């Protein structure tokens, strides 16, 4: 009992302190006595010029799997080259430019340029290449050509990879003081992304056949805004829009047209008005957003389709109001109200379905999914004493939806957190939360009422109790050593679910050690584990039960030693290990292996030849393995055609020599 009394005592003693946190903002400064005409700063003048570093990299990749390109930055096997840059340029009159490039020339790299007069205007230019590698040996007998999947007796091997090329241009301009209204500033930015490659997909011929879906699409984005600000307020009017275009058409087989519908082009637009007003130590923030998502792509023309094109239109509304107030230097209270609505105003028609739906029959009307959500959040933070802080909060969320098995769900949750600086080197944080979800009567949906299993509760709609706890320990026994330990435990109990997900647990810890052993030598180590277990029931002819036990391990260590050889040489090493594993147990037995692991290592040395030049040699190693029992040979399962066994098992190496030119 002594511990809480001590806290209380400290809290009461602390009340004699200042009522509020100090506000040292420059616009509150007492400048009556200051004369800035004498503020010359003769000692801080900088000569205009270029500074920074530019680096040319040349190296060699040794890998027989393009998947290694995710870790090594490039999927090629052989010579690679790239450029890095960190350049800054200052000119007289306050103009500044900055060029940054990283791995430019590899499958994953970027370059960005910022130029202008900070605080007045700035032009931004960006380019990025982002590639995700999946598999290099996906086997298919379907050859794609302009929307036709041509069957072939010969297998074709394709790379499953997606390359995104992104480019953007942005301009911001500050108009300064606008009469007596306030400061006006503006920005506009345009971005374009082109994505190409192949990804895994599947179609029904009527047998299921996995195939490599070609991807050729683009996304154009525009955002612009006007901001007006005064001493204790600001407001912004902003627009953002996006136009998505897909250049891959609906897919056909020679004997069956339009078996697979292409992702349709779409647009999204949002208009936002937000603002903030500060009244002493209370801050009011609000936002209203009106959005619209559109899609009017021509529909596949077939018997049973009454429409040439479908007018898809979804209107969205978002509104938020937040208040935060510092009651005194110890207590801060906050609250927020949110409203979100998705109103689907698309056209409705009846379509003949090729597969007989046992629920709705052969003819079905497209449903319009509307969602309306309201939420409220409250929080409080109270400083009990120096180093001791208690926080708490309550959150409520109500979601109403059309055509769901449960038209309304309501979530309540409470949380509390206590942070304690127990003794000088040891800090402890404890957090606990409890949430409960209920709602309207769970019933089969309007469209599926007759056949859905009456005992099934979909997990995102079901009654649920969520209990979670977290603990964090930070130990700093010496000014050169920090040890962090964090752990968490969460239990989701779907208490009324008989069929479906009934329980889910997620718990784990991570440990992080940082050492600054000397001015030149630093080291770190990390370790973490996580366990996620779920239990679910199904009902085919008889009920069945399934346990899913996932776990994850990560380890890491590294060190960096600088200042060797007369301050010229820096050496470093990093190592990471990660293991992801999933175990599925059903009453019929355990699933085959489903796990992946990787060892990643990097060794580097950087040597300064002189003040203007440096050499760096880097070696990177990636060992990667993954397996999935569901992966089977192309025709291993009767009636199913796959892309083959797409597991990975490789060792990849990269050796890179870098030459840097350093500007003063």
């Amino acid at each position, binding site marked *: 009992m002594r511990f809480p009394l001590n806290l209380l005592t400290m809290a009461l003693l602390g009340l004699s302190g200042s009522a509020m946190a100090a506000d040292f903002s420059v616009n509150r400064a007492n400048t009556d006595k200051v004369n800035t005409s004498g503020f010359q700063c003769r000692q801080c003048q900088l000569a205009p010029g270029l500074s920074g570093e530019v680096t040319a990299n040349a190296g060699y990749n040794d890998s027989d799997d393009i998947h290694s390109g995710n870790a090594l930055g490039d999927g090629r096997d052989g010579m690679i080259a790239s450029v890095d840059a960190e350049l800054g340029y200052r000119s007289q009159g306050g103009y500044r430019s900055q060029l940054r490039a990283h791995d430019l020339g590899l499958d994953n790299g970027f370059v960005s340029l910022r130029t202008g007069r900070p605080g007045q205007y700035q032009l931004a230019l960006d380019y990025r290449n982002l590639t995700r590698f999946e598999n290099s040996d996906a086997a298919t007998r379907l050859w794609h050509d302009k929307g036709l999947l041509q069957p072939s007796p010969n297998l074709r091997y394709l790379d499953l990879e997606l390359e995104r090329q992104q480019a953007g241009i942005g301009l911001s301009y500050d108009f300064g003081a606008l009469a007596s209204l306030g400061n006006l500033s503006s920005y506009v930015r345009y971005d374009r992304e082109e994505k190409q490659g192949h990804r895994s997909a599947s179609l029904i011929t009527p047998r299921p056949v996995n195939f490599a879906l070609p991807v050729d699409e683009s996304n154009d984005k525009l955002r612009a805004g006007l901001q007006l600000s005064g001493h204790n307020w600001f407001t912004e009017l902003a627009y953002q829009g996006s136009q998505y275009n897909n250049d891959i058409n609906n897919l056909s087989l020679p004997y069956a047209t339009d078996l697979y519908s292409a992702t349709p082009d779409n647009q999204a637009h949002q208009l936002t008005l937000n603002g903030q007003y500060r009244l002493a130590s209370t801050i009011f923030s609000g936002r209203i957003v009106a959005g619209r998502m559109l899609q009017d792509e021509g529909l596949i023309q077939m018997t049973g389709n009454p429409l040439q094109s479908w007018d898809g239109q*979804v209107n969205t509304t978002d509104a938020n109001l937040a208040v935060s107030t510092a009651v005194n230097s110890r207590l801060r209270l906050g609250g927020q109200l949110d409203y979100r609505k998705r109103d689907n105003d698309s056209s409705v028609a009846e379509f003949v379905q090729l597969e007989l739906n046992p629920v709705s029959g052969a003819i079905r009307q497209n449903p319009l999914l509307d969602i309306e959500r309201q939420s409220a959040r409250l929080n409080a933070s109270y400083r009990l004493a120096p180093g001791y802080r208690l926080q708490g909060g309550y959150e409520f969320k109500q979601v109403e939806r059309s055509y769901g098995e449960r038209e309304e769900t309501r979530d309540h949750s409470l949380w509390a957190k206590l*942070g304690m600086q127990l003794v000088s080197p040891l800090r402890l944080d404890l957090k606990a939360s409890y949430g409960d979800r209920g709602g309207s009567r769970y019933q089969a949906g309007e469209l599926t009422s007759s056949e859905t299993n009456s005992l099934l509760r979909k997990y995102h709609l079901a009654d649920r109790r969520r209990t979670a706890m977290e603990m964090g320990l930070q130990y700093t026994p010496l000014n050169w050593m920090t040890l962090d330990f964090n752990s968490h435990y969460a239990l989701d109990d779907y208490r009324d679910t008989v069929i479906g997900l009934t329980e889910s647990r997620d718990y784990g810890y991570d440990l992080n050690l940082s050492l600054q052993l000397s001015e030149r030598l630093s080291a770190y180590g990390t370790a973490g584990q996580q366990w996620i277990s779920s239990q679910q029931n199904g009902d085919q002819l008889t009920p069945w039960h399934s346990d899913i036990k996932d776990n994850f391990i990560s380890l890491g260590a590294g060190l960096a030693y600088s200042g060797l050889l007369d301050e010229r040489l820096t050496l470093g090493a990093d190592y990471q290990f990660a293991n992801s594993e999933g175990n599925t147990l059903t009453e019929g037995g355990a699933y085959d292996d489903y796990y992946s692991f990787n060892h990643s290592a990097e060794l580097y040395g950087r040597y300064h030849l002189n003040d203007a030049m440096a050499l760096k040699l880097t070696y990177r190693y990636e060992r990667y393995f993954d397996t999935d029992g569901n992966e089977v040979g192309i025709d291993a399962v009767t009636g199913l055609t796959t892309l083959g066994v797409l597991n990975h098992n490789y060792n990849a190496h990269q050796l890179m020599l870098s030459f840097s030119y350093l500007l003063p």
Partner: protein
Amino acid sequence: MISTLKISAFIVPIILLFPAVNAAPWADLSQTELEQQLEQKFSEGKYSPKGADSCLMCHKRDQKVMALFQGVHGALDNSRSPMAGLQCEACHGPMGKHNRGGKEPMISFGAGSKLSSDSQNSVCLGCHNDPKQMAWHNSLHNLEQVACADCHQVHAAEDPMLNPLRINEACTSCHTRAKADMSKRSAHPLKWDRMTCIDCHNPHGSLTESALKQTSLNTTCYECHADKRGPVLWEHAPVVENCANCHKAHGSVNESLLKARVPQLCQQCHADDGHAARAVAQGGNSAFGAGKSCLNCHSQIHGSNHPAGSLLSR
């Protein structure tokens, strides 16, 4: 995850480089005493006669101090810069008698400062009062007493938080579970800094849940996955409602960032007429548990625009 800012891997080197911060003559003052003294000085407004030149008489040998002039906060030729006004004292407060032996406190920032984060941050927020900081006061970072200077540096040619190659390192020095998630079997390419945490989250807070930059979680995902945005003729209700119903954005031990493997994931919601709830005793034995499992047929799981695609299979 408990995300209290810690003296972590990211911050320790900074402290060690500047041990003098901890050895200030006013180190013996309590936080309350220090704030009271600084408030008194601030209200008296006894600024130096020569601005930065007065400060640099003593501090010019400190490389960290002089690094200010490499960055935008040290620009003399910019009317918005502190150097165009009260110079060093715009942020560190009026000098008063600090130059007479250096025993009178000044406003200081970062992990070595005894000032409360609210007081430190009031300096920054005095100028950085714009929509990006709109939700700061209700944000997790503010409630956790994170100071601007815990992440940002103005005494540098460039604030490291403007460098996309250093952002994830800073965030994960506290958000350690998110760091571990980056190494799971499937994850966004955060581990290699090809995405940054701030592509989705606003560390200064947001009026959207989880400090997301867009107005909802789905809108955030659509920024890069516009093909999933729709609307489409046949929508999949949980997809429309919340991408996180099926996916874990920070990483998963399952492929495609899925919460669970197929067919189990699908069967957590579907048991219609026994077909969807078919017990798959072992993966790889039938079309229900091999290849893409349920998605062998229902491949348009995010929604279909095919007139006959109500079962999301075309």
